[in-house]
């Protein structure tokens, strides 16, 4: 095994024809997670830097192949539909873990708790008295015009008064290293299975690297999730039957749905497995119909129930919304949370925090311009080539313009789109996202990253340490979404600060 070879640098002289992979690493004036500058390594990275720097490119390649094979054999893949061979690819995994010291994590955690608390208060408010609108803190039209605002649920009380149970909040760091919130994903955030699988894979390929660090575990996520789902059972029912509702095997996140169901020990169901009778939801089983109490649904509102939302949805369960209204089934997340992760509403989250909690946001937003505001509109139109423009309701890196990386034609197209529907667009300055060393073509190079922690809101708020670090693997790219050529890394939160 190469692990033992690399361990003993003192016994005999090992010929090293290739330069150590960190030699010639450049930070290009970005905030680098590992390096203060090209000569100095941040103290909490120094042991990792030493260990990884000791490996030859061949040894690193070998580890990478081990990691890739492990993902492939486990079937953690997506299918490339462009050819007929059924080719399957893995989501790229980078070997170099990202490290977050305890103090930094405490700051992030406090910020996320504050944010989800405010978002849940906001959702309760706009589906009841709408005080925040009455008081003019948020202009009413932004809610009324929101594509994901579910008028039908005005006055409806959700179990335990929790709307967003599972939230994936995307964070980035700017050129000073400050953590900023880029967006909230309050409907069906995906990716948490990669957090767990990345950890397991890194443990397999670099078992010794963990020995020198106190890395906080992440494996308890499914347990925490199950506790939360049981907590929201209708009428506080003890030992409720929980199920994960998936759009099916062809959904790109199916692996995750199945993974979570397996880890929690609950059924994974498709719409066609469920049937609603007298406002109660049942699974079709080999022993007839069995009642279901809590559904962790990975299907968006729009597709959930063809009787209420999109009638063309083949994924949903006719009648499930009626059962939900009748209080016989609990859904996570609740219906109607999409209004809170609308990219326009994002602009108002700092105000929500102030309004409901009387606090300043611990994690600030990225400066944002609303195309529907007169002054902002002018600024956006004048500065399109410099800005990042996002559609309010899109996810997965779609409907997005990165000004500095776009052609004139793309910019012109967005100019037209914004003109036609200002409510649907926001703009942000192009951030100099922080970078992290990644193992690319036999050497380490800096790539832009973000961080998606997973926030669970049940009896209390719990956040597994770290989250998913996504990497824009294309040189210079700022888009980290897996659908757009992104990869991911294991993310370590340390017990201490070094």
């Amino acid at each position, binding site marked *: 095994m190469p692990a033992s070879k690399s361990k003993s640098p003192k016994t005999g002289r090992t010929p090293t024809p290739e330069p150590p992979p960190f030699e010639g690493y450049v930070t290009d004036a970005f905030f680098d997670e590992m390096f203060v500058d090209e000569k100095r390594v941040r103290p909490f990275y120094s042991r990792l830097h030493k260990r990884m720097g000791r490996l030859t490119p061949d040894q690193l390649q070998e580890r990478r192949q081990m990691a890739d094979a492990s993902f*492939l*054999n*486990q*079937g953690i893949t997506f299918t490339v539909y462009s050819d007929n*061979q*059924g080719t399957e690819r893995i989501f790229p995994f980078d070997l170099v873990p990202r490290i977050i010291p305890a103090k930094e994590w405490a700051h992030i955690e406090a910020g996320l708790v504050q944010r989800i608390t405010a978002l849940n208060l906001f959702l309760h408010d706009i589906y009841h008295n709408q005080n925040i609108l009455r008081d003019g803190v948020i202009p009413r039209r932004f809610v009324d015009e929101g594509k994901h605002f579910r008028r039908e649920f005005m006055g409806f009380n959700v179990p335990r008064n929790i709307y967003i149970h599972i939230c*994936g909040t995307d964070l980035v760091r700017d050129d000073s290293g400050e953590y900023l919130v880029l967006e909230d*994903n309050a*409907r*069906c*955030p*995906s990716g948490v299975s990669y957090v767990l699988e990345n950890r397991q894979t890194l443990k397999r390929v670099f078992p010794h690297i963990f020995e020198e660090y106190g890395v906080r575990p992440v494996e308890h996520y499914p347990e925490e999730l199950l506790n939360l789902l049981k907590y929201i059972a209708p009428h506080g029912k003890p030992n409720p039957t929980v199920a994960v509702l998936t*759009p*099916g*095997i*062809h*959904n*790109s*996140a*199916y692996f995750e749905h*199945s*993974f979570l*169901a*397996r880890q929690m020990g609950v*059924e*994974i*169901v*498709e*719409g*066609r*497995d469920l*049937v609603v009778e007298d406002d109660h939801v049942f*699974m*079709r*089983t*080999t*022993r*007839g*119909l*069995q009642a279901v109490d809590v559904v962790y649904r990975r*299907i*968006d509102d*729009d*597709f959930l129930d063809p009787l209420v939302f*999109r009638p*063309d*949805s*083949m*994924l949903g369960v006719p009648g499930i919304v009626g059962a939900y209204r009748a209080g016989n089934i609990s859904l996570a997340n609740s219906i109607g949370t999409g209004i809170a*992760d609308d990219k326009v509403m994002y602009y108002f989250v700092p105000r929500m925090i102030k309004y409901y909690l009387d606090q300043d946001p611990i994690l600030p937003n990225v400066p944002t311009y609303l195309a529907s505001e007169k002054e902002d509109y002018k600024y956006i139109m004048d500065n399109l080539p410099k800005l990042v423009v996002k559609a309010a309701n*899109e*996810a*997965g890196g*779609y409907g997005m313009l990165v000004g500095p990386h776009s052609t004139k034609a793309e910019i012109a197209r967005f100019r037209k789109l914004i003109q036609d529907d200002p409510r649907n667009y926001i703009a942000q300055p192009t951030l100099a996202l922080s970078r992290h060393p990644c193992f690319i073509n036999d050497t380490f190079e800096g790539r832009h990253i973000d961080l998606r922690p997973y926030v669970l809101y049940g009896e209390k708020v719990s956040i597994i340490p770290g989250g998913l670090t996504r990497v824009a693997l294309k040189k210079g790219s700022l888009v980290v979404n897996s*659908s757009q050529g992104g990869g991911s890394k294991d993310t370590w939160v340390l017990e201490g600060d070094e």
Partner: protein
Amino acid sequence: MMLSRVADSLYWMGRYVERAENIARTVNVNQQLILDLPSHQANRIAKDWFAVVAALGEEESFLERYKKRDMDTVSEFLIFDRSHPSSIVGSLSAARENARTVREQITTEMWEQINRSYLWLISKSARQFYEKGSYEFFQRVKKALQLFQGITESVMLHGEGWEFIQLGKHLERADMTSRLLDEEYFLIRTADCTPAEALNQWLAILRCTNARLVYQRLYASMVEPTKVAELLLLNGLFPRSVEFCIYQLDQSLRRLSGVMPGRFSNRAEKLSGRLLSELSFSTIEDLCEPGLHAAMDKMQVQLGDIGEAIMETYIHPTSHQVTASPLVAVGQPQQ
């Protein structure tokens, strides 16, 4: 208690894994068979392998795809052609897709074994392996599938889900054995050759079912058609015989429902119980009285009915209607 859809997937996973192994045996043995024949016969047979396709009931889908019926096209059709479920790749792919939908029910080792086997089978290296010498290739395919069966046996909870895998496996195996015995579909037409030459065909059937040495031990005699049929249909101790498979299937059904042998609580149990009794209380002469072809034909119908009855009882009970829908009609973007 388990989801009907899950039971369905486990059942079909069991069937397809078994089918892949049986196809591998069949193609392998028939390729070997040619080596044992005098050259004039070998040449003739190599040009027409349609009987093998017909035995599997895949005449139509073969004719849609191929013009020539020689050993190479038929082998290609039965090994690598992924466009239908009666090839090794097609079966294994279907088994894997079913396994993927029930990953929370099966163990990690089971999934990884089926996944690895599939990924290997569609790789370039598997193809090169086959072209270098098909014997080693088939050995590898069989080993991979047997390993899966072994892992299933030794690590999976022997509960309801396991029983559905067993149902699929034993029904498929019984069906395949009965097809192999159907003399209409022999590569060597026994009428066209001397009795000595015809023996090759019966030997090939024994090899397909791994029964060559078992036969020798039990009968210690020349290979005789009646004895081969007796071994493969009525020997209750031989794991590839129809009686053995139906006994196991019947046991699984009874463990699922808790109904004692000799009685029934649903149509699947009624049909499997009847077939089991028929096999238990018949000699090979009774069974083959209408002729081997007619007898095997009838048996395949009976097996098909049992399969339908299992679906009716556990997967699509008519008491609540099932709307089978395509999995994805409209997609949703991922957050």
